[in-house]
């Protein structure tokens, strides 16, 4: 019963973990703007977690540089199931203008299944909110499947 209660509460408050894999910082500041009172993602229970072990939703920005690739893969492996991966901006999906560079090891799809992709360069905080909300819905479904 305790487990049930835990899973029900976790459904209502998905925690975010943000990985910057070589992003230009544009998407990162928009994600932070998303948590401010103006856009207020926290009203849906989102909260930035300090460690990937506490996270439910992983937000990835940046084109995945060769320096950050190992760290990204390691961090993603630490996130407990069920998890949901959200890519912010064009970079994680394709590499954007850095595509084909010697130091880019993207796209993100090579390492993990991306559940929700938010397009834009950079996306508006409202768009990121929509992406996070959609991710929370997917997470809910995943939890229900896992609970059965």
């Amino acid at each position, binding site marked *: 019963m305790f487990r049930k209660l835990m899973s029900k509460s976790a459904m209502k408050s998905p925690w975010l973990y943000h990985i910057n894999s070589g992003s230009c910082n544009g998407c990162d500041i928009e994600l932070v703007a998303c948590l401010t009172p103006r856009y207020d993602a926290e009203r849906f229970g989102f909260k930035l977690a300090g460690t990937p072990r506490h996270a439910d939703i992983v937000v990835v920005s940046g084109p995945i540089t060769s320096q950050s690739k190992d760290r990204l893969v390691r961090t993603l492996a630490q996130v407990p199931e069920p998890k949901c991966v959200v890519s912010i901006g064009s970079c994680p999906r*394709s590499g954007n203008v850095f*595509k084909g560079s010697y130091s880019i090891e993207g796209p993100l799809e090579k390492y993990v299944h991306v559940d929700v992709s938010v397009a*834009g360069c950079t996306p508006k905080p409202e768009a990121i909110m*929509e992406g996070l909300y959609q991710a929370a819905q997917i997470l809910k479904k995943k939890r229900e499947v896992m609970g059965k």
Partner: protein
Amino acid sequence: MMFPFLKKAASNIVNKPSTEAFPNPAAKGLGNYRGRIEFYPEKCVDCGMCIKVCSPGAITREETPAEGGKNVKRTFDLTSCTFCGMCEEFCDDCSIKLSQDYHMVEEDAEKLCTTGTSFIKDIEGEIVCEIGGCIFCGLCMRNCPQQTINVDRPNKVWEIDHEKCIKCGICIGKCPKKVLSYGEPDETHIG
């Protein structure tokens, strides 16, 4: 005033919250915001300028033969786009537009593509220039997306490379003297 916040507190009882409403699918970006690409294939002449100026290479072109011409399918990959707006600026026919729609959130990245198929008619004849009327201003040379035209003003030379020419017709529209047309080169027409 002793309690300056009282006025604000009283007004806040009736005011709406400063937090933005969610979800708000009708909301649009403000001012010159560049969002989702809209493509109007009926206006496209397939000059290829958008593909040339696209820095992340987000635009792809697929050609299939059709009766009396060809069908050209353009795909704008929004997960690759950097929304610089160059394609819109360089498009001579205004067939590309970056709208203010920022709701670009999908589970399936395939859906984040703008596609359009335009029919390009086969044109008989080549671009020719009427020698008498040309003032060698060079506008056709500057606007040619394939750099096929060469204009030498001091020596009064007008040349075109028919092998490279894709017959988009942009030069015909740009010519201030209206001396360019489709036809066959003869004594009064160079080409």
